C-alpha cells in the first residue's frame, strides 16, 4: 500500500527504517512520565496477549519466570564467576 506519508514520531518501532532510528528515538517522550507510561503499555500488551485470554497456557507465566532467572543471573554474574573452576567449594 503505497502513498500515505506518516511522520516519524507516529510510526511504530517495527515500521521504522534502520537509518531513521536515531530520529525516531529523539522524537519519543523520554521524560520519567513517558518512560513509565511506555513500561505500563508494554506490560499491558504482554498481559493482554498471554495472560488475559480464555485458555491461557503455562507459556505466559513461564516467560516471566525465565526472564527473571536470566536477569538474576546477569545481576550476580560477577559474583558467580569465581565458582566456575574453584577446586574446593
Amino acid at each position: 500500500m503505497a502513498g500515505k506519508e506518516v511522520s516519524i514520531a507516529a510510526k511504530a518501532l517495527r515500521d521504522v527504517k534502520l537509518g531513521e532510528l536515531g530520529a525516531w528515538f529523539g522524537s519519543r517522550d523520554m521524560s520519567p512520565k513517558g518512560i513509565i507510561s511506555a513500561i505500563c503499555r508494554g506490560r499491558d500488551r504482554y498481559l493482554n496477549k498471554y495472560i488475559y485470554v480464555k485458555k491461557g497456557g503455562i507459556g505466559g507465566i513461564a516467560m516471566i519466570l525465565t526472564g527473571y532467572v536470566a536477569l538474576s543471573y546477569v545481576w550476580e554474574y560477577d559474583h558467580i564467576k569465581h565458582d566456575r573452576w574453584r577446586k574446593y567449594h
Partner: protein
Amino acid sequence: MALNFFDQFMTPIYMGIPLITLATLMPRLTFLQPTSQWTTSRFSTLQSQLLNSSTYQLFAPLSPKSHHWALLIVSLMIFLITINLLGLLPYTFTPTTQLSFNMAFALPAWLATVIIGLRTQPTHAFAHLLPESTPPLLIPILIIIETISLLIRPLALGVRLTANLTAGHLLIQLISTAMFTMIHTIPLMAMLTGTLLLLLSILEIAVAMIQAYVFVLLLSLYLQENM
C-alpha cells in the same frame, strides 16, 4: 572454603542496585489485576479463588471489627508466598532469608495488635497473661513467663520464617554439591542423593507456602486475642 555455602544469601550489587531490590519488586509482576472482562481468564479466576478462600479461612474466626485488617494480612500472605516460591528458582535471591526483612514485617504488626488490645480492652488484654484456673502459688511465676512469651512473639515470628527458608536453601545447596562431587566416583550413591534432592525440593516448595501461611495465621491469632 566453608564461606562459599553462605554466599547465596548475599546480595550482589550490579550498576549500583542490589539484587534484593529486584527480588522484592518481582512479585508485583506475578499479581494479576482485576480486568473489565466478564468471564475472566484462567489465571485471574485461579488467583481470585485462592485469595477468596484463604481470606475466608483466615478471617472466619475473627470478630467483624478485625476485618479491616483483611487487606493488610492477605496481601502480606500473598507477598510472602510469592517471594518464597520465586526463591526456589535457580540464581534467584530470596529476601525472606534475611532476618531484617522478616522482622520489618513481624515487629510492627505484632506491636499494632498489642497496642490495639491495650487501648480498646486493657483488662481483657492483661487477662491473657494468666491462664484460667492456675494454682495461686504459681501466679507470680506464670505472669512473668507469659509476659516473656508475649514479648518474644515478634522475634519468634521473624526467626521462624528466616530459619526455615535459610535452612532449606542451605540443605539444597549442600546435597546438590555432594551429588555433583560423587557422580563421577560413586554413581549409585549419587543417584540416591539425587532422589533425596528431589524429595527435598518438593518439601521446600511446601515449606515455602506453609511458612508464609503460618506467619500470617499467627498474626491473625494475635489480632483475635486483642480485638
